[in-house]
């Protein structure tokens, strides 16, 4: 048993010092961090710290998860720390976007709150195939970038970092009702974007 673990650790350590592997991983991590922090410098710092942390703690990598998954988990913790530190800044600067967010979402529905004909969600068929394609992730990323900052932030805290409702509310200082409204809007918007940019293009 011990040897298996040692092999995994040695293997992880050597991959983390392999230039090509490290460079790819780093690029992917930076994209992920920029999406959430909306700041390139901050994102690069977070990734740097996460990678250093990973190398330092490579012994605690037990080989059960994929190496990348493990490194991303470390990055997620860094991002949570940063989001907590800068919560004041976020609240003040993003508040004024609320009106525009409302109007956009309401355009999906008619006056009675029913789907407009051309906005009605379509049948995506089997989405599993799409989730495996490289192009899907490019579209997914673009759609995330298109979300209003506040919505994107809480959506990613919920679905990327998998924080619980009360944790998110405490971190960005909003009520549960507010959070639910924002998640609802983010999902409406993201779904619509994926449908328009991916499923309707027949890109599968």
């Amino acid at each position, binding site marked *: 048993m011990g040897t298996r673990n040692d092999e995994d650790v040695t293997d992880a350590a050597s991959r983390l010092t392999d230039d090509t592997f490290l460079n790819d991983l780093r690029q992917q991590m930076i994209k992920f961090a920029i999406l959430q922090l909306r700041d390139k410098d901050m994102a690069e710092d977070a990734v740097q710290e996460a990678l250093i942390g990973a190398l330092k703690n490579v012994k605690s990598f037990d080989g059960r998860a994929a190496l990348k998954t493990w490194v991303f988990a470390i990055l997620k913790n860094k991002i949570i720390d940063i989001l907590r530190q800068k919560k004041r800044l976020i609240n003040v600067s993003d508040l004024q976007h609320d009106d525009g967010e409302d109007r956009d979402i309401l355009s999906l529905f008619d006056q009675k709150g029913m789907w407009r004909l051309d906005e009605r*969600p379509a049948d*995506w068929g089997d989405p599993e195939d799409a989730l495996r394609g490289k192009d899907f992730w490019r579209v997914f990323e673009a759609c995330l970038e298109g979300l209003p900052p506040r919505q994107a932030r809480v959506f990613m805290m919920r679905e990327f970092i998998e924080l619980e409702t009360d944790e998110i509310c405490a971190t960005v200082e909003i009520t549960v009702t507010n959070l639910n409204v924002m998640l609802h809007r983010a999902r409406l918007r993201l779904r619509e974007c994926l449908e328009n940019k991916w499923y309707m293009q027949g890109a599968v």
Partner: protein
Amino acid sequence: MLNCHDATRLMSESQEHALSLKDRIVLRAHVMMCAGCRNFEKHLPVLRRAARSFARGRDDEMNVK
């Protein structure tokens, strides 16, 4: 009678916590009759799965089936 906007709101909330019995009943009644909301309901878990795969460094996750 529930409209689509409220139905999508309830469906979104059901990803966060269990809905009350009354909400579940009115939602079921609406979704049964509304093809758009039926599709929306199928898309929500796809969004969640996509987001989580993305957050785990995606292709490792996706290649393992």
